[in-house]
Structures are given as C-alpha cells and as structure tokens.
C-alpha cells in the first residue's frame, strides 16, 4: 500500500505560538518549543515527530497567521 509522507515548513518568525495547529494535528506531529522563543518572544511550533506527518494540512488551514506550508508525497 502506498503511504504518504508529509512535511510542514514553519515560518518561525511569524508564529505566535497559539497552539491551534498542535490541537488540530491528528498524528501529534507538531508541538510548541518548550524553551526556545522567536524574536517576538513566542514559543513557536516545531515538528516534534516529523516521521508521523501525513501532510493532511489541517494545521495549515487553522493557522491564523499563515505560518505553515505543507507538502505531501506518496512513498512506495
């Protein structure tokens, strides 16, 4: 069965750490940085479990600031 692999590119400078993408993710791929912050002091989002990403783009749709770019590729 063909599997899909996804990847989320994150504009960390634009992210406000609102956590909406994290709760929308069905595979628990994303999480907020526990310690690191961006220039504006927000704990930005990062791919905690990049292997789990299926590229469903739920995170991209709900992101209020358009920080996320989602890619998806079929792997055999």
């Amino acid at each position, binding site marked *: 069965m063909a599997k899909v692999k996804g990847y989320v590119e994150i504009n960390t400078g634009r992210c406000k750490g609102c956590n909406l993408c994290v709760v929308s993710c069905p595979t628990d791929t994303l999480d907020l940085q526990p310690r690191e912050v961006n220039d504006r002091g927000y704990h930005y989002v990062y791919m905690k479990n990049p292997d789990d990403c299926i590229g469903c783009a*739920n995170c991209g749709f*709900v*992101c209020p600031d358009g920080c996320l770019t989602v890619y998806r590729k079929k792997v055999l």
Partner: protein
Amino acid sequence: MNASDIVSPENLVYAKPELMNDNHMHYCPGCSHGVVHKVIAEVIKELGLQEKTIGIAPVGCAVFAYKYLDIDWQEAAHGRAPALATAVKRLLPDRMVFTYQGDGDLAAIGTAETIHAANRGENIAIVFINNGIYGMTGGQMAPTTLSNMVTSTSPDGRNVETMGGPLKMLDMLALLDGVCLATRVSVHTAAAVKKTRRMIKLAFENSMAGKGTSIVEVVSTCNAGWKMTPAAANDWMVENMFPVFPIGDLKNI
C-alpha cells in the same frame, strides 16, 4: 526519506495565500480574524478578482485589514461600512465590493446601515465576524454577547431582563427581500474553514452576478476577551455559541 525529498513545488498542499503579504499581523495569538483574512485572500485569488476587488475595512480589531491583504481598501467610519460599500458599488458596478465587519460594528453602531443596505439589496458581500464581545476596546459587552456571559462591562453576567438577549442579526437580515445569501459558518477546524471558503466564494460570486446582498456570519472566538487559551476558546465556542448561533444556511437563493 528526509525533508529535502518532500519539499518541492509539485508536492505543495497548503501555503499562505499570495495576496496576504508578509506584514506581521497585530491580532492576538489564535485570533479567528487571521483565518478569515486567509480565506478571503484565497477566494479572491481563485476568482481572479485581485484587480477588481474593493474591501471596506471596519472599525474594530480588523481596522488594519488593509495592511495585510494586497487588494484595494477603503476605511469606513464606525458601523458605516455597508453605506460606503453601497456608494463604491454604485459608482463602480464592475468591481467586487465586500465589507468586513465585527459584531460591535455591524450589530451595534452600524445596525441601521446594515439593515437598510440589505433591504435595498445592494450587490455587496458582508463578512460578519461574530465573537460576542468588543475585542479591540477591552472585552466589553456587545449586542451579540450571550446571556449570563461575563464581560468587563457585565461582571455579573449579561442579565437578559435589563440588557436584552443576544441579537441575532443574521436571522433578522434573512427576512429581507434584498438578501440572497444569509449563512452562518465558523473557522475552528480545517473542515469548517473549507466550508467557510465555499460560502465566501459564493457571496463574492453573488456580488459580481448582481443577485443582491450576501451575508456570511463567521462565528468566531476572541480568546483574549474571553480570557481563555485559543484552543479552550474554540471548545467554549462550540459548547456555548453554537446553540445560540447555529451553523448553517438561513437563506441561499
């Protein structure tokens, strides 16, 4: 497989809309305004109307909407966006004219303008962001505030006997003959965002087709005003806002 194998233009699923520029948005983290801005940018791009769209920015949190979307904008006085949109659409009938208003703008100070513009059936689209509170000025009670909801000007909760109940603008507007689309949507999940995109697209198409006034009410959150985290505000909205402001079409002709 590593990231460099996946990241290429043919694998792109979702990206920030082209019409949204790189200015940092002033909205609070998790604010629904950002999602609706993105949806509007996507729809305008999809319809190829970027040179023909004129947006009317309101007074409220979205007062700086013109800084974030690369289309033509007009700034209206508080509540007067439908009146300004009427003028713009009548003078330039080939343009797509939409207003973007919050509940303090559309349902409080701008009630008369909104109702009369809809009653005249002006060929404009109205995007109405209903979060049940005055977000910009510090979380005061709005006409759409729910019964018993605590705000900074109703610290004991909204008392229906003295302050009235939540004003259902969309139900009122749906009764008017000039209105061709009155629908209520939300943006709290990916599926809801896609639905909102379909309805806003329909509203913009109605404006160009001259079918009458289209109103899309987006039931949204104000996590700073409600004093919750963004995720908790979404849950609170589903639990408390949706029974009063049910999602769905009230009118679609």
